């Protein structure tokens, strides 16, 4: 009976020997490559530090102006522009300006990076079923392996701070944009693709002239999810020493300060909504044909 209800697993000793063997090897690997890796990422670190310092040092009225300007450029919509500026003013009034700037610095870099890397991978994935079957499980691992698990090796390799934080955010936030780019391209109408083929469009011309534009609804759903994922990682990132809104949230948790957590959490949400609305409205503008407003 015991045999049936308890799975006949490897012996305790075997398992622990195996675990130790893995850990030992990884530790060696860390020692061997850690420094090289750190050196490799150093320029990124320098940039992130510079960018954060820039945001921190810039007088807040200028930041508000820039944010308003970017929102306007992206969305061309007064409601969104004013909403963004008001959100930042509120964040300032409630004393979260500095943390927000730190978070803004790392998250905007992370999101842009994820999108810039994710879309090409998604395109690659849509090219063949083989590619798809190779990339899909990698994405599955990236999304479901608990961040805590890879935080250990990442910290062992790169220490704590912005770079490992950025990596952790990207590991988690890239998959949606990759998947939805792939899906969107695969859903493009076969008749339209046939027409492009018939005119001798090269793979490149098909991609940028037909597939990507027609996949935009899905690609922007991916952008939305990537933004959401990136911002949901703010707290995790701050667990490995990234400054920003995650820090007070962690403090709030351990002290059960509901209001503190809520306020900072809402600041994160506000960033997410601003990022999302600006990018989505930009996406809508790229898809003018769907609302049939061609004649202006």
């Amino acid at each position, binding site marked *: 009976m015991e045999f049936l209800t308890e799975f006949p697993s490897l012996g305790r000793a075997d398992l*622990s020997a195996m675990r*130790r063997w893995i850990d030992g090897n990884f530790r060696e690997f*860390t020692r061997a490559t850690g420094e090289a890796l750190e050196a490799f990422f150093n320029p990124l670190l320098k940039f992130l530090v510079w960018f954060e310092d820039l945001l921190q040092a810039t007088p807040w009225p200028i930041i508000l102006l820039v944010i308003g300007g970017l929102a306007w450029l992206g969305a061309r919509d007064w409601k969104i522009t004013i909403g963004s500026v008001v959100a930042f003013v509120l964040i300032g009034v409630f004393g979260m300006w500095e943390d927000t700037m730190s978070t803004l610095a790392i998250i905007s870099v992370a999101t842009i990076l994820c999108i810039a890397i994710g879309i090409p991978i998604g395109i690659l994935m849509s090219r063949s079923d083989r590619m798809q079957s190779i990339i899909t499980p990698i994405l599955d691992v990236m999304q479901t392996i608990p961040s805590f698990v890879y935080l250990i090796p990442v910290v062992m390799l790169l220490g704590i701070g912005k770079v490992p934080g950025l990596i952790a955010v990207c590991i988690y936030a890239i998959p949606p944009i990759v998947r939805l780019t792939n899906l969107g391209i695969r859903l493009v109408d076969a008749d339209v693709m046939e027409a492009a083929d018939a005119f001798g469009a090269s793979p490149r011309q098909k991609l940028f002239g037909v597939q990507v534009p027609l996949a935009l609804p899905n690609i922007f759903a991916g952008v939305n999810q990537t933004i959401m994922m990136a911002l949901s990682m703010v707290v995790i990132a701050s*667990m*490995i020493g990234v400054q920003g809104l995650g*820090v007070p949230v962690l403090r709030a948790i351990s*002290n059960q300060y509901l209001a503190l957590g809520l306020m900072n959490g809402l600041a994160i949400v506000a960033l997410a909504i601003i990022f999302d609305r600006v990018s989505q409205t930009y996406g809508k503008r790229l898809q003018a044909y769907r609302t049939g407003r061609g004649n202006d």
Partner: protein
Amino acid sequence: QECGDVSIAEMDWASAELMANVDAIILEEGYGCDVSLIPGATTTTFASMSEKAEPDVAPELWINAVRDPLSAAKEEGSLVALNDGPITGLGEGWWVTPAFAEEHPELDTVEKLLERPDLFPYAEDESKGAFVGCPAGWGCQLVNANLFRAFDMEEKGWVLVDPGSAAGLDGSMAKAADRGEPWFGYYWSPTSMIGKYNMVMLPFEAEFAGRENWDGCIALAEQDCQDPQPTAWTVSEVETVVTDDFMEKGGVAADYFKARVFPGDVMNAMLVFMNENQATGEDAAFEFLMTHEDIWTQWVGEDVAAKVKDAL
């Protein structure tokens, strides 16, 4: 003497896991309780206990982080501390890696080391020295922040680095120790990390500057501590806390909890055992019960001890 259902908090660090599992085995086998283990972290568990009286027992509650609400709850009577020292040999303080200690034998106190921020360059600003504090929310976070001011460390060229979490703190220390890099920061014992890496705790030259300074300033949030004075660490406090529900249900094992004290060296040995074998709390509990009969049999009556021994 009915025992019934008992839930025990299993906190997510090694010593707490061990204690929770030892308690579980003894209550189940010795007292006939129906034990469930509930995983959690210090503060979520504490909140649940004070608000919902669930779980019943927190074997190893580090009270730094929850000092105020805990004393409020005690006054109210909703929580009861059965044991205010279930582990001996607790220690908190500022540590450096062994490689560094060897290289710089002359820097043998905190104060001496504080003059050399250049030896611990901070990755994000190399002109500064990095002092790794506690993750946000731990009691030690407040303490470190206040001591940082008390020792004028900012002027001396230090940055107080927030590691963000236990994982961050452990990782940064492990990475440095593994690679023989310099590392200076807070840690505590008994923990496997300290033993495993042979970390070196630096003594303070300053004397302990009195309870008033500590409790009235150093242990509080920064804004409530106007003028922190340099001081050595106070003694650390861990309690075994139970809910009043548990006491009302008869508190069968109350005597056991009161008597249960793990000597620091034994605890350290167990932690090293766990670490080396990557053992679970359950594995370690059996190991403890089998190899340290001399200790745990003193915590319970003979009949109970016999029952537990039978079950092993």
